[in-house]
């Protein structure tokens, strides 16, 4: 095995001896110095996760979070050199982490936080302007067959838990005591200019947006959403998507 292979194996496994060929000028045990690298690698990645998942951290406390994140870093070290991308596997890890099982909503809160990061760094795409929107909506007979493009940041997360309320409570937007975590909620994540917004939406709205995302046409998407959720207010959702710059393109059926 190569030198760097041994070095990495020892970095990631605290039980392993430090690489044999390290030395120190004063005869100090090289492992006492190698420990600096071990600590740098693990603590910098734990810190990166703490920065990316602040609500998860608040929900479990600093000590628990760091212990959990450390297990994750050892099990799933980054396979990307871009730290904004690290953490994608963290929600699934949390889901399977037995000590966190008393907080069944934790993994979905983590999913919501990672969607926020992705939205924050997603591509800049210009929204439809007023003229384009007027053109698109002024032909009602062609509306049903129209497909809509959404801003790259737009994402929906449907959860069996109150992820939007839990998230809002940790932004100081509502009291945590008011939150029933076991109530299902649907989140719309969207970057509006420079700010990422998280909004609770109805089940029908979530279905509608997901249908648009998969390229279904407007009529089909609306029909499916209304079949499941008859109270879904399509015009209200469209107004919101327009005002937040989430509609970036449209195409009429040929």
């Amino acid at each position, binding site marked *: 095995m190569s*030198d760097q292979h041994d070095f990495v194996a020892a970095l990631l496994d605290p039980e392993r001896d430090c690489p044999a060929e390290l030395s120190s000028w004063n005869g100090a*045990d090289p492992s006492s*110095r*190698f420990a600096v690298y071990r600590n740098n690698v693990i603590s*910098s990645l734990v810190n990166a996760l703490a920065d990316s998942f602040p609500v998860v951290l608040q929900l479990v406390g600093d000590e628990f979070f760091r212990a959990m994140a450390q297990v994750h870093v050892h099990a799933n070290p980054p396979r990307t050199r871009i730290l904004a991308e690290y953490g994608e596997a963290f929600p699934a890890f949390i889901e399977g982490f037995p000590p966190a099982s008393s907080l069944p909503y934790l993994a979905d809160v983590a999913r919501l936080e990672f969607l926020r990061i992705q939205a924050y760094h997603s591509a800049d795409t210009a929204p439809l302007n007023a003229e384009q929107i007027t053109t698109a909506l002024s032909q009602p007979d062609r509306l049903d067959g129209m497909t809509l493009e959404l801003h790259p940041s737009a994402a929906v997360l449907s959860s069996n838990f109150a992820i939007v309320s839990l998230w809002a409570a940790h932004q100081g937007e509502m009291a945590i005591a008011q939150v029933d975590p076991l109530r299902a909620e649907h989140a719309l994540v969207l970057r509006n200019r420079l700010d990422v917004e998280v909004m609770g939406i109805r089940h029908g709205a979530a279905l509608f947006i997901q249908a648009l995302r998969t390229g279904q046409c407007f009529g089909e998407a609306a029909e499916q959403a209304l079949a499941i959720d008859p109270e879904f207010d399509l015009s209200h959702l469209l107004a919101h998507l327009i005002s937040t710059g989430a509609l970036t393109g449209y195409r009429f059926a040929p």
Partner: protein
Amino acid sequence: MTLSLLADENSGAPALSSTLPLRAGIGLKSQHYRQILESQPQVGFFEVHAENYMVAGGPFHHYLQRIREHYPLSIHGVGLSIGAEHPLDEQHLDRLAALIERYQPQSFSEHLAWSSHGELFLNDLLPVAYNATTLTRVCEHIDRVQNRLQRPMLLENPSTYVEYASSTMDEASFISELIRRSGCGLLLDVNNVYVSCINHNWDALGYINALPLHAVGELHLAGFAEDRDSAGDRLLIDAHGAPVDDAVWRLYAQVLQLLGPTPTLIERDNDIPSLEVLVAEAQQAERQLALHRTPQRQALA
């Protein structure tokens, strides 16, 4: 590095200069974006970590683009892993080339270190052994970078905590030979010199004097953390979480005696203080730079 003769040391206009100004700059942190645009602080340049801007869009690019309109820029990579046994990651190099094309920085620098192994990224700057094998490999990697980017890069001397029994040359000789063979420049991190010299009982001025100082394109200053090894000796850690230590300021003054005014970055990546604190530290460096600027100008006159 003859282009540096053309640089106007007082110019803040990025488009006019192809090298960093002979001034002090600071690391650009997202928490300071708005304040920088509003207050336009008196710093010579900003430096960013390349990997933080390898994202598709959003606020990071929004603000960097605007700040770049007002200040010279240094792009400093932390993920290229030039010291790795494996070949360079060509995709990463492509991303770097795109970033450099987009922002036209006055300087691009990376580290004499490795941070990846195969697919794994370790997010730390790990040490290389100093011998003929690693020298050849690192040279090949630097050649590849400079060919791909079509520009010379600066290579930063590392801070290290261990030495390799398989090293056959000292660090300064290794760096000198790298620079001679590859034609890259040197980013002399004065804090790293101090940290490594304490950690390995080297003589700091001897180390600096053994380097090809003509190739220095930028200096780094930062704070360290302090620990002890198992023998009870000082073990300094390049933590970037504290102000520049007095001992490093003294070494910086000695470096400026040797080099004359040189672009200098105040690095702070952890426990980020207010913008004012970083600007004040940059001004402290600027006062040192000014001491070395005037006599040289008179000598040239």
